């Protein structure tokens, strides 16, 4: 393993003048004020999106009529267990997976299905993705120099060789790696450094929206903090919009502004992060929240996780709908359920 030389190391612990407790009491006070101050512009809108995969007999619906939008500059979390379709949505946005129904609008333009080559090039530039496993997502036979600039090669994003070199150097520095690393191969790096390379490869395209698919779940605890810090720092300095796909709710709570909870291809609840964490309505969200292991022995010892039973809904007579139960807090439920679920919080 090579030495981790990071510029994105954290501030010393003494910097934390604010207590953890008070920070949670006033969840995102500053962030909310900041966001209401400027007009909210929707950078990405997903309308009635469905994705089907061909299986032996017919089709399997991985994503089922999903609706959400992402504001420019925010961090949007997509949370669910494996098989819920969260990665499929992310891949549909970057045009890896084909959609079978619905629209994906980026800056007001439809980007799914058949689009013009010019728009395709624009989308490749403006939407980039970071993948989960840094061990598997880098070409083992290519040098870092090529891996990072591959996007530039394929879209003609540079005029001279010197310009490309300069761009690679800048991207590497930005993620806290040394420019010399460009001449090395992926196997010479640790997991955290590889993930940084994955981020550099996305950044070199100067994207506006970054889709991060479980970027830290394959990393060690101590490295996770570094990569999370890097992502939020990049978001600030570059004004990036971040879509964060994860199953680890404790991480999601730390990094996101709004989250959508997805279960078997359907979004069941959506709202501001702190709102969802303090007032979860849908039983699936509650089960998911109750299953997060917290590093608190007293709570953990007395706890038994609650499980979600999809059969608990009575949708035969009263079909569910996408309703705004509380301001900005949406849930997939029928009228009676909304009333019953939100009663304890009124």
């Amino acid at each position, binding site marked *: 393993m090579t030495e981790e030389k990071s510029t994105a190391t*954290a501030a010393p612990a003494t910097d*934390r003048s604010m207590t953890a407790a008070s920070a949670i009491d006033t969840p995102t006070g500053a962030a909310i004020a900041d966001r209401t101050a400027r007009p909210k512009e929707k950078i990405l809108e997903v309308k009635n999106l469905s994705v089907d995969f061909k299986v032996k007999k017919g089709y399997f619906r991985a994503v089922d009529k999903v609706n959400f939008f992402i504001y420019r500059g925010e961090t949007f979390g997509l949370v669910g267990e*494996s098989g819920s379709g969260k990665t499929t949505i992310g891949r549909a946005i970057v045009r890896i997976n084909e959609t079978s129904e619905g629209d994906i609008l980026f800056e007001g333009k439809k980007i799914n299905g058949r689009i013009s080559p010019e728009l395709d090039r624009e989308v490749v530039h403006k939407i980039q993705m970071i993948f989960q496993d840094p061990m598997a997502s880098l070409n083992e036979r290519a040098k870092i120099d090529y891996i990072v600039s591959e996007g530039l090669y394929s879209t003609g994003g540079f005029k001279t060789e010197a310009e490309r070199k300069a761009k690679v150097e800048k991207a590497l520095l930005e993620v806290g790696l040394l420019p010399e690393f460009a001449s090395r191969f992926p196997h010479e790096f640790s997991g955290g450094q590889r993930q940084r390379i994955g981020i550099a490869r996305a950044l070199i395209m100067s994207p506006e929206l970054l889709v991060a698919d479980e970027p830290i779940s394959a990393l060690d605890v101590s490295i*996770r903090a570094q990569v999370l810090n890097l992502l939020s720092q990049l978001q600030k300095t570059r004004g990036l919009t971040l879509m964060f796909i994860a199953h680890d709710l404790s991480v999601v709570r730390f990094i996101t502004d709004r989250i959508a909870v997805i279960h078997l291809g359907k979004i069941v609840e959506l709202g501001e992060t702190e709102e969802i964490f303090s007032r979860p309505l849908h039983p699936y969200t509650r089960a998911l*929240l109750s299953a997060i292991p*917290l590093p*608190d*022995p007293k709570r953990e010892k007395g706890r038994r996780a609650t499980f979600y039973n999809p059969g608990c809904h009575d949708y035969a007579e009263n079909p569910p709908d996408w309703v705004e139960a509380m301001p900005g807090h949406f849930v997939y439920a029928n009228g009676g359920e909304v009333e019953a679920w939100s009663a304890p*919080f009124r």
Partner: protein
Amino acid sequence: MDGKTVDGDIILDVRDLVIKFNLRGQTLTAIRGASLAVERGETIAIVGESGSGKSVFTKSFIGMLDKNGWIDSGSIWFEGADLTRYKTEKEWLGVRGKKISMVFQDPMTSLNPLKAIGKQIAEVYELHHGMDKKQASEAAISMLERVGIPNAGERHRQYPHEFSGGMRQRVVIAIAMACTPQILICDEPTTALDVTIQAQILDLIRSLQAEYGFTTIYITHDLGVVANVADRVAVMYAGKIIECGKAEEIFYDPRHPYTWALLSSLPQLGIKGKPLFSISGTPPNLFNEITGDAFAPRNPYALKVDFVYEPPIFYVSPTHWAASWLLDPRAPKVEPPEIIQQLQDSWKVQNAWLQNGAEQP
């Protein structure tokens, strides 16, 4: 060095264990004198970042070190015998699987993809209990039922690829349980699984433990899992156990700066909009001789003595010790980071929703 914390009924007593590996002509010291006493019936968790040696440490209990590795010195006492003296496979067969079993991280790679799962469990019964094929197969089915595989009577004929990750891990647990071991070592049993499935697997291991009364050793880097399962916690860094105590003592009153750093870097404690605490630098190179405290170069609280002499063990309470010079009476008084001081309060706030009675509709 004495790693003993309590005078309970000790089932496994590891003393000053040193494990070395030969790698490309160089010698690497993976375990540098680790001591741990495991009590009968307890659940102990060994925590540390990757490369800290936690897997190597526990693999030595069942003689599963890689070929280029050996136990250099120290002892592992189990049932009146020193396991470090075992040389032949035959000697190990009496312990490995039979008395000390292990559940590995990835259920995909620890099962044989070419054998039906019922067969893989029945094998254990035939080998260790001397049952005939029919008896073994029946025993395998009932064990599958016990670990929560629905339709075990049918599904025992299926192959590993026909099961989900959580179900596969249940099968692995069934194989480990077939010998009714005295010690079950779980090496990151849930890292490959979803949170909801993880909770189920942890519950399963807990209920099996209540039923069979075995001792569990967890290896994990997930402090959430540790809080959920462990009675005691041992924190490992660079091949040494640097702090050990009851779970409450480690989570609410940690004393070693490395434990502070490990807890502070949890996203659960992060404040939105502020950088998360992260440990600077990298773990030491174990090819080199380490003088003083291995964590000193990364430790903002390091004293001069940390770079010269290795800290001995200091007892904080009869059940809690840490190897840090900060606990020496001559050391200057150091306040732990604020975030550590407020651990207990901040956990409470995190749990507000679960505590205010809005449990389940």
